[in-house]
């Protein structure tokens, strides 16, 4: 335990730089997943179409093993930043896509009818009615995706490195104290990201709309997928 506590001041510079690069790798991965999955999920949900696409892409991606994706991408592209980003993308898309689709698809039809009745255009219906009512569930999906990404990013150490994984997979150099110290940082990062996104979730949730009941945000959303399938 003393070794573990001493590891932080002794390797402060190393830990700081690895944490920083960890955050960047994760932020990039989450950004790519968001750019692809969020518009797709929202669009399909708005049109109440393509449940088949949303659910099968999610289920298929969820089945793909991260390390296998990394291995194949090394064989194809060589060692680069692409390897880990492919794995992180595949990991984050299912919760984001599923939740975005489900959220917009299940907005109370009466509210949408009322909006149309008030003469709102299609765009206004989406931006002013459907999305505000969907944000809580959409953010729940983003939180899950972010946690998955942060916990899996250490695998980047196997393909050129640049995350806290560099310390975690190098037990011969940093000993068990280093492994545990870096792991604790990963866990802290995961909870910090989850907490920050929870604040954002609360901020965008309209007053009078209760947050979705959930045991824990980190839990991957599954039962909705299955019942719909």
């Amino acid at each position, binding site marked *: 335990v003393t070794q573990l506590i001493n590891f932080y001041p002794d390797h402060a510079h190393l830990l700081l730089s690895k944490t920083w690069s960890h955050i960047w790798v994760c932020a990039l991965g989450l950004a790519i997943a968001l750019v692809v999955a969020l518009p797709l999920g929202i669009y399909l949900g708005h049109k109440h179409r393509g449940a088949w696409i949303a659910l099968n892409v999610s289920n298929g991606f969820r089945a793909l093993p991260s390390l296998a994706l990394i291995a194949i991408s090394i064989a194809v592209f060589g060692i680069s930043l692409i390897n880990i980003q492919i794995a992180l993308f595949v990991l984050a898309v299912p919760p984001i896509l599923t939740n975005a689709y489900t959220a917009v698809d299940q907005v109370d039809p009466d509210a949408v009818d009322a909006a149309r009745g008030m003469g709102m255009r299609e765009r206004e219906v989406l931006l002013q009615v459907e999305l505000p009512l969907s944000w809580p569930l959409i953010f729940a999906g983003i939180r899950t995706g972010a946690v998955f990404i942060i916990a899996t990013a250490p695998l980047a150490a196997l393909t050129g490195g640049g995350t806290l994984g560099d310390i975690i997979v190098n037990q011969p150099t940093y000993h068990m104290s280093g492994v545990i110290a870096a792991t604790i940082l990963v866990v802290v990062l*995961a909870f910090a990201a989850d907490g920050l996104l929870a604040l954002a979730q609360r901020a965008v949730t309209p007053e009078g709309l209760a947050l979705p009941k959930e045991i824990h945000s980190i*839990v991957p959303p599954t039962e909705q997928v299955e019942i719909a399938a």
Partner: protein
Amino acid sequence: VSAVLLAQGGPVIPHFGEADKCVRTNGTFCWHWFVDNFGTRFWPRVVEHIELTLIAVGIGFVVAFALALIAFRYPRFEMPFANVTALFYTIPSIAFFQIMVPVTGINRLTIEIGLVSYTLLVMFRNTLTGLRGVPPEALDAAQGMGLTRRQTLLRVELPLATPAIIAGVRVATVTTVSLATIAAFITPLGLGAPIFNAIQTGANTDFFAAGALAIILALLADLIIVLAQRLISPWMRARSRAT
């Protein structure tokens, strides 16, 4: 033989022939080499991978199911258990396996403990959600028919919760297939072994073949469970056709 060759002035170093061009240039995927080495190099790893997965999901299911039944009967146990198991999702598995080594040693047990830990949450949560999602009308009918609490659980609640329970098994299984590749970081078992080996040697065919086999295994497992789900709960299909 070499003595004879030496006496005849023949080559001392035996000539084994040359590897084909693909292997020499470390091509992305050398099909011939893969076929030649499949039996010795990859198939045993596939079998190990299936064993690791089946054992982990089996044990994980028994534990998660039991805990879900307890939490269903006594709701106060739900939050502590859900929170502890949720914590696993924030711990990188590659670190978790290493941290377990000083406790349980470098062996299969360590790997299975890690794999089981990561399966618990999904199956626990889905079983509990399934049991709670039973329609009140069904429970009223059961009560009206004079079923005891135990009979209600076995004949009404569990059958109706089956789709949700199997959905949990499905996610737990593909997750385990994925994490079992990472477990090879500790001890060379399963399809992760050729991948970690290739990280040392740089052999692209190892990367590609082991990665592809792991993906095929995961998708097959997923498919088998979906089919099993349809067989076990045919009323779900009927309902979705009706709506």
